[in-house]
């Protein structure tokens, strides 16, 4: 008997080790999870007689399923890390071994019921009232004891232990195949923890904590409705957003999942390599990111939303910001790859230039950032999605050959101005009833001219690198001293444009504009030039003036 058990343990150990030692990158891992989640969706289409291959359900099949499995797998990976302290990269690779199990639920359902009875869906609770945290905890303990995976579920009646049938009818919570799939997953998960730690207490803890995770994921939408004090039904997710009426069920759940996936991914990255993580975060270039986020929020301000926002509207705004941040990080990454040689001269602290991260790693992260930014933008709203796509097109033309627009003076800063304008338009169109034709034309001209003139300042600190790379910025063409003089004059001019364009506000704007233009000229031309005080000056001037103009 002991020999037999040893042999089984050895087989599992071999499987886990072979998975852990496979050469799988981040992208391969993501693609594999995506493939299995799509296959699950397709099989479920057959097993439950619910037509997911209907175009109306495309969002469900292509985004809801994968988002669900990404969050489930990433949570289990984090849990494994907490329990085993094994390298998170190894755990992530080993987790792929559980993927085939997610195909079991539809296969079992099909074999037993031939697609007649069941449908895999979130566990819809039948509690009528809104539960407090204490009630939720009690409900969870009932679930963990008497639910389908419960320690005391012996298949009989549970009324002996429970007199609150209404709060607790666990009959409802999942269908046949799913229950078998979940117990197998918990079984192998706890076996993995036991193999890694040789600690039976941790294996028990793994069973309990995986029940916590499955409870949270399984009841997820209704934990949200409970939190929002809405009826516990999928109907609570329909026609709820005033900003964008099509932001419904799938959009909402996927959006919340994506917010969590982003947080978990950051945690994963931090655990994987703190040094790389910090280098990545420091590379965000906050002042520039702040400019794009500021442009978006200014657009939201211009949209003049005529109603108070609810949770779902705020969710739209959160994922819109997430889309902008992800899209910016993607643009930064692509730029770093193209400018590697230049950065080694003028920005040697950047992750690629300093050698903290290699090209392959940045490329992998970039692909994920690109997909995530497009997806979050798409969920926000179609018009916003278009602005993000156009912005990433401009960013590509700006950094990459054959055009590499950053090489040409004025055109390069015009591209940046265009990106700011698109950010503002994106914010304006967040209210789905707005159209681009309502956007003030005068403001378009103002943003384009002001930013084209003022953004030349960012080229001063890159002078050495740009010179080496043949990027013809103003400081490179005219030399650093004369270049700074010209950039200073252009920035000073940019402050004088608002009072000139808005004659009715001339008297109020002219004096601060003159003061700020002198300050800008001085800060740019002082001997010990630093970029951040100039950008700070721009912010201090721009924020009140923009709100004053509209």
């Amino acid at each position, binding site marked *: 008997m002991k020999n037999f058990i040893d042999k089984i343990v050895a087989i599992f150990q071999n499987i886990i080790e072979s998975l852990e030692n496979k050469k799988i990158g981040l992208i391969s891992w993501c693609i594999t999870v995506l493939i299995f989640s799509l296959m699950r969706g397709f099989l479920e289409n057959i097993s439950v007689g619910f037509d997911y291959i209907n175009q109306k359900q495309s969002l469900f099949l292509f985004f809801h399923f994968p988002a669900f499995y990404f969050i489930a797998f990433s949570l289990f990976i984090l849990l494994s890390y907490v329990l085993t302290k094994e390298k998170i990269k190894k755990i992530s690779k080993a987790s792929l071994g559980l993927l085939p199990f997610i195909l079991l639920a539809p296969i079992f359902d099909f074999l037993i019921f031939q697609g007649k*009875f069941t449908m895999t869906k979130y566990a819809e609770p039948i509690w009528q009232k809104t539960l407090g945290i204490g009630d939720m905890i009690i409900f969870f303990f009932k679930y963990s004891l008497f639910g389908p995976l419960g320690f005391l579920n*012996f298949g009989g009646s549970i009324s002996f232990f429970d007199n609150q049938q209404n709060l607790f009818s666990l009959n409802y919570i999942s*269908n*046949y195949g799913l229950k*078998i799939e979940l117990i*197998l997953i918990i079984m192998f998960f706890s076996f993995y923890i036991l193999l890694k730690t040789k600690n039976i207490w941790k294996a028990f803890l793994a069973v309990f904590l995986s029940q916590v995770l499955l409870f949270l994921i399984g009841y997820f939408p209704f934990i949200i409705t409970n939190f929002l004090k809405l009826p516990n*039904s*999928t109907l609570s997710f329909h026609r709820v957003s005033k900003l964008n009426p099509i932001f419904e069920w799938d959009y909402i759940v996927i959006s919340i999942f994506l917010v969590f996936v982003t947080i978990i991914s950051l945690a994963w990255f931090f655990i994987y390599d703190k040094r790389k993580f910090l280098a990545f975060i420091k590379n965000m270039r906050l002042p520039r990111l702040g400019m794009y986020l500021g442009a978006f929020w200014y657009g939201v301000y211009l949209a003049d939303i005529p109603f108070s926002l609810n949770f779902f509207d705020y969710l739209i705004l959160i994922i819109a910001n997430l889309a902008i941040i992800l899209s910016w990080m993607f643009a930064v990454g692509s730029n770093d790859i193209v400018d590697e040689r230049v950065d080694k001269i003028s920005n040697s602290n950047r992750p690629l230039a300093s050698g903290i991260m290699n090209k392959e790693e940045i490329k992998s992260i970039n692909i994920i950032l690109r997909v995530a930014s497009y997806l979050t933008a798409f969920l926000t709203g179609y018009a916003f999605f278009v602005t993000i796509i156009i912005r990433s097109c401009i960013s590509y033309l700006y950094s990459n050959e054959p055009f590499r627009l950053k090489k040409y003076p004025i055109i390069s800063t015009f591209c940046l101005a265009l990106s700011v304008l698109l950010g503002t338009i994106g914010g304006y169109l967040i209210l789905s009833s707005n159209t681009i034709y309502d956007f003030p034309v005068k403001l378009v001209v103002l943003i384009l001219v002001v930013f084209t003139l003022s953004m030349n300042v960012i080229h001063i600190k890159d002078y050495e690198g740009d010179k080496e790379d043949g990027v013809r910025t103003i400081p490179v063409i005219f030399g650093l001293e004369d270049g700074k003089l010209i950039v200073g004059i252009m920035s000073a001019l940019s402050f004088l444009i608002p009072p000139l364009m808005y004659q009715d506000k001339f008297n109020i704007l002219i004096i601060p504009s003159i003061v700020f233009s002198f300050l800008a000229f001085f800060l740019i031309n002082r001997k010990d030039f630093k970029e951040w005080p100039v950008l700070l000056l721009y912010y201090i001037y721009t924020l009140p003036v923009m709100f004053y103009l509209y």
Partner: protein
Amino acid sequence: MASIIALLYLHFTSNVLSLLKNMNLSKQKIRKIIEIILVILLVLYFFKTLWVNIMSYDKVYRIPRTDIETEEIINKNNQYEKSN
């Protein structure tokens, strides 16, 4: 019922403890025994839960689908509730 369970629990634990004391087991050995019991319990839990769920094919609750929530399904669910 709770008090009966509590009494039984006390009775058994005190018996088991005195038995263990008489056996003069070292702490390490007691820990080993507890671990073995836990392993057995874990294995039993898995096989029990797997078995219960495999045998629950006749207790499948027919879940109304939000999109096609028909009168027919609701009626069948009501019948199911009554029969249980």
